[in-house]
């Protein structure tokens, strides 16, 4: 419990706090006056001044930061330069990104575990080598390049899948599945490679334990040794890195969404950067950063929970 508190107070909250200041300051540092951008270059100085006042741009910086953070915490991120509220924009794009990340996460972990377990129990044999090569390819080729290549093959040449867009899952489940398959696969590739490497190493390590030798010595079949004695302990370290993958998926989906014109937060962000839509940039960044930090925190806590030695060394201050 002490460790949890220390980790929260000394690392999580300070980092979130400083990051939120940076995100707030970003809009200040960006070239151009938001009021002018919203009204267009031809606006009269009076109109600009009025809008600046309405947007609160004429108030001191710290006050604006506190107002901004306060309303952001209640889910109000202000008005985008498109005229809609940022919350409305997020309401349509956030589910798309979550859906993509969740499906990619499921595919990536399932594939990764299957590959890693296969490789681990056939160590040094052909399946292990095949999985190793696939894993190296998946890690080496960036997901958006892999995405572009599978887009070319499966959407343009073979025409098995559509090349762009999203269909809500409740409207037409089959079409929804067809649309999400390629982007989810592209995003899942790296996850499966990382999980597979980790799982393989973990199984290889566990299989060297004395109790595995005992299990074999008492005449258990190899199948029983692996299913009953090796698999469960080897999954513990793997569980802890699964959380980290989810955080990274949200970052990775920014580019993948662009490849498959998936109408998620990533596309919204890129559009906002090109049109200098500060409130939208800030909202998405804040969401991505806090999600990422939360998953990192959960992962760290999971580590500590699984390995009391780490907890002891952390609480003495390292």
């Amino acid at each position, binding site marked *: 419990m002490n460790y949890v508190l220390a980790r929260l107070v000394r*690392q999580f909250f*300070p*980092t*979130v706090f*400083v*990051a939120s200041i*940076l995100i707030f300051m*970003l809009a200040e*540092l*960006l*070239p151009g006056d938001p009021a002018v951008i919203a009204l267009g270059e031809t606006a009269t100085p009076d109109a600009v001044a009025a809008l600046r006042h309405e947007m609160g741009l004429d108030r001191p910086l710290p006050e604006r930061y506190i107002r901004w953070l306060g309303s952001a915490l209640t889910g109000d991120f202000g008005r985008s330069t498109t005229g809609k509220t940022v919350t409305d924009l997020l309401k349509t794009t956030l589910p798309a990104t979550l859906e993509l990340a969740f499906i990619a996460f499921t595919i990536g972990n399932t594939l990764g575990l299957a590959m890693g377990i296969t490789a681990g129990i056939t160590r040094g044999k052909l399946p292990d080598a095949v999985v190793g090569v696939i894993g*190296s*390819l998946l*890690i*080496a*080729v*960036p997901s*958006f*390049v*892999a995405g*572009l*290549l599978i*887009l*070319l093959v499966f959407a*343009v*040449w073979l025409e098995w899948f559509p090349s762009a867009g999203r269909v809500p899952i409740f409207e037409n489940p089959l079409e929804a599945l067809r649309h999400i398959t390629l982007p989810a696969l592209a995003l899942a590739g790296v996850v499966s490679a990382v999980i597979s490497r980790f799982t393989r*190493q973990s199984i290889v390590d566990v299989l060297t334990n004395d109790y595995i030798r005992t299990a074999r010595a008492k005449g258990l079949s190899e199948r029983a040794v692996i299913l009953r004695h090796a698999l469960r302990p080897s999954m513990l370290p793997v569980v802890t890195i699964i959380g980290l993958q989810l*955080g*990274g998926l*949200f*970052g*990775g989906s*920014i*580019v993948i969404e*662009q*490849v498959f014109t998936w109408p998620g937060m990533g596309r919204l*962000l*890129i559009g906002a*950067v*090109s049109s*200098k839509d500060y409130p939208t*940039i800030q909202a998405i*960044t804040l969401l*991505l*950063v806090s999600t*990422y*930090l939360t998953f990192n925190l959960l992962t760290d806590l999971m580590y500590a929970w699984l390995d009391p030695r780490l907890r002891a060394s952390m609480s003495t201050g390292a």
Partner: protein
Amino acid sequence: MRDNAQVAFADEVGILAKPGRFGSSGFARFVKRLFRDPRGVFALSTLFVLLVFAFIVPLVHPTSPFESIRGERLLDPSSEHWFGTDELSRDLFIRNAVGLRSTLLGGVLAVVSGWLLGVVLGYAAGYSKGIVDTIISRSMDTLLAFPGILLAILLIALFGTGLGSLALAVAIFNVPFSTRLARATVLRESVRDYVLAARAIGCSGPRILYRHIAINTLGVFAVQLPISIVNSVLIMAALGFLGLGVQPPNPTLGGLLNDGRRFMRLEYTYLLAPAAILALLMLSLNFLSDVLGEMLDPVRRGKG
């Protein structure tokens, strides 16, 4: 297999026992060992072809990357235009070559500058400890809170587009990683006997850092460097693909991927060529860093 590993290990111990004598024969042995691994062969030969493509082809190729040839829009690959032509009737072979060159130059520039800054910050943090360390380390934690490409996107939003600001964004992206690594090496090395000895004979702090710690920990950075180049080139290409990189008409790999994506139904080589180049580049750099890491780290070589 086992014997080979042992020979290689003895070989390496031999080199390690004579620091500073990494002369031409040592380098030749080094390259020879790289070639003993199939991944090394693949990586070095692919990199050689890609480097010739990026740096020699633009010098000797007769066509300009900006020249439009009337009536030759979105052509298939032919003996005249090896990769076809783009929507503005420009030769894609030369545009890919120049694009790869600017992506590579930008990536290496970003890594070098990001690493120089990071190493200085990391050394300062690790050596001075106390408040300086806290400030530097917490700042790096904050930068690392922005997942992957997000930090680079925000920096581009801040600096604007262009090769210079692109390289600057990617350089800053590299800083937290190199700072952490440098800080960790200083913390680990500063309790070693040779550092204590240097301090005892009255060496100044910067001298210890530069003449003793930096020289003795070069290997750590040598392994990390290819990984950083991989990440930087990848981020450069991704930013270009997102339309946040260098402005047209200058070609970059990322920009070509973006344009190729738009015209993939009309002319697939437009997309395939830069995608294949980038994939091959990433594969060979990854393999190179794997092989280098295993050569320099006997523990990792033993596993597997």
